[in-house]
């Protein structure tokens, strides 16, 4: 057993060193995504509308209002209904040719809201969390999958090698030297969060099971290539479709269909409504049931004939798929529950602390002063550690700051305003890496001070640009967290400064 434990320690150290920075980035972005809609409101002041679903107009009025924006020959248009966290109507249309178009509408007046000029959190932090902004051959998704597998391995091997875990649980030598205190922090956050980390890692992997095992259906759905895969998808996920017929056809009452959907679903409400082949006699209407009141992200869908309003097909997930949808729901937290949402946020930060403390411990137990530790590997880990932990926080704040600083009309040739914000994020992150590579361990303090300044700066800019009054709680929440981040950065910068004074790492 001792030999096995020793070998697992090697696995734990190597997996941690190789995947630590990536895992921190994934955990950080995932933690921000817990409050992505709230950060969206912070970044898109025009969408800070009072949330009330009762004042929303009926679907038929919405359909009338958007009809003029649906081009002839469109494949589909879709309305996502407002929710407590997203108080806007999202209208999107897929023309016969060309890219889809998206517009945000005021749910009361149905007037289009101004272009947000930003991806916000749900358009940047959230896709970063699972795709790292690397679209090429799904490489980003695969890297995140590999990191998640490494995380499982790290958690399981961590339990085995820190076997005195529970005996050491109440031991937190905060004022000891860095190797000791960072190891204690790693252990305490690891034990406290272990169930959450296991669930969130496994459920994250479960979401993409079809991507990791693209051949899984081959022994069951025997038709070759894409046909077999499409058959599996249709049976697992529903998805009814039929072709357009080419003769014009009317659209009967969507409200009547919604009433029927409510009866079919025992009072469930739709979260989006999609009209396929608008204006064609083959057209049909799809309703998807809201996730708001349950953990599982149900696949309940109803399809109606657009012309007659007759129910064409009803779909519900089967049991095993239901388990997959429950796991997905555990991960996506699309249900309404504020205390649980905050708990996810805090646990996510706990994950960041565990990963960060583990990396810092690896460095601190190999002090830079000794000749035996003076190799390129340690210097690389040192720079990745500073840029991966402090740098990504700094870049996130720079992104938020750019959102409040750039003028609404800001753009460069070939760059939209939203792309400029993203460029600021990556420029700040790259700058942090260069700074860390040049300055070594001293970079910690400098970057923490910048984080502190940016945190205060972002909160100040938000209030300076949008005022004190008439703001939803979501925006105040983001401001408050920014101030907490700034204060924490100041405290840690102070401690790092003292440790440096004592000659620590």
């Amino acid at each position, binding site marked *: 057993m001792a*030999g*096995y434990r020793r*070998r*697992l320690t090697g*696995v734990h150290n190597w997996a941690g060193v190789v995947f630590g920075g990536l895992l921190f980035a994934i955990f950080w972005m995932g933690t921000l995504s817990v409050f992505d809609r709230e950060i969206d409101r912070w970044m898109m002041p025009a969408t800070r509308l009072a949330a009330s679903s009762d004042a929303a107009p009926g679907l038929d009025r919405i359909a009338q209002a958007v009809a003029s924006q649906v081009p002839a020959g469109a494949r589909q248009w879709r309305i996502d209904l407002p929710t407590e966290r997203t108080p806007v109507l999202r209208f999107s249309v897929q023309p016969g040719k060309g890219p889809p178009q998206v517009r945000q509408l005021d749910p009361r007046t149905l007037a289009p809201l101004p272009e947000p000029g930003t991806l916000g959190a749900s358009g940047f932090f959230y896709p970063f969390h699972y795709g790292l902004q690397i679209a090429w051959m799904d490489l980003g998704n695969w890297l995140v999958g590999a990191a998640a*597998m490494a995380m*499982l*391995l790290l958690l*399981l*091997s961590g339990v085995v090698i820190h076997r005195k875990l529970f005996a050491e649980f109440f031991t937190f030598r905060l004022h000891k030297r860095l190797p000791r205190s960072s190891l204690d922090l790693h252990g305490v956050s690891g034990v406290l969060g272990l169930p959450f980390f296991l669930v969130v890692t*496994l459920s994250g*992997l*479960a979401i993409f*099971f*079809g991507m*990791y*095992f693209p*051949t*899984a*259906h*081959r*022994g*069951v*759905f025997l038709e070759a290539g894409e046909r077999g895969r499409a058959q*599996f998808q249709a*049976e*697992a996920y529903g998805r009814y479709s039929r072709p357009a017929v080419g003769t014009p056809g009317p659209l009967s009452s969507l409200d009547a269909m919604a009433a029927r959907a409510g009866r079919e679903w025992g009072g469930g409400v739709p979260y989006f409504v999609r009209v396929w082949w608008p204006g064609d006699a083959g057209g049909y209407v799809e309703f998807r049931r809201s996730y708001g009141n349950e953990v599982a992200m149900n696949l309940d869908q109803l399809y109606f004939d657009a012309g007659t309003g007759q129910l064409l097909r009803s779909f519900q997930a*089967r*049991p*095993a*798929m239901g*388990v*997959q949808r429950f*796991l997905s729901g555990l991960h996506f937290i699309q249900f309404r529950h504020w205390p649980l949402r905050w708990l996810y946020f805090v646990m996510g930060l706990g994950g960041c602390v565990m990963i960060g403390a583990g990396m810092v411990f690896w460095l601190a137990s190999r002090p830079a002063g000794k000749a035996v530790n003076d190799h390129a590997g340690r210097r690389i880990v040192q720079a990745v550690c500073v840029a991966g932990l402090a740098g990504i926080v700094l870049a996130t704040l720079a992104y938020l700051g750019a959102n409040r600083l750039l003028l609404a009309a800001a753009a460069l040739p070939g760059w939209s305003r939203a792309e400029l914000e993203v460029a600021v994020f990556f420029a700040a992150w790259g700058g942090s890496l260069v700074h860390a590579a040049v300055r070594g361990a001293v970079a910690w303090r400098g970057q923490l001070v910048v984080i502190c300044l940016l945190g205060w700066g972002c909160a100040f800019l938000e209030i300076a640009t949008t005022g004190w009054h008439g703001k939803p709680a979501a925006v105040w929440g983001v401001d408050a967290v920014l101030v907490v981040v700034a204060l924490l950065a100041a405290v840690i910068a102070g401690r790092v400064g003292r440790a440096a004074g004592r000659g620590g790492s």
Partner: protein
Amino acid sequence: MSGLSISLRIVAVVGGGFGLTSAAVMVTAALLARWGMAGSEAVVCAALAGLLLYPGLLLWGLAEHRPARLYCGLGGFAAALAAVWWVLA
């Protein structure tokens, strides 16, 4: 242990282990469907189980210090999967 043998082992466990897991998912799905489970359900069950099998293989393989046992284990598993697949086909 030489660097080469360690690299070989990592490739065998991480890459070979993933290949074996994918194959095991395919075989398990086919078996479950053969035993009467709905097709899509069988695929989902097998794939979710595969997400547990792979870390298990990694934990065993990366900490197994006897190369003979490692390669025999992986090879034996591959042979067993191939045999079941052949019987099913």
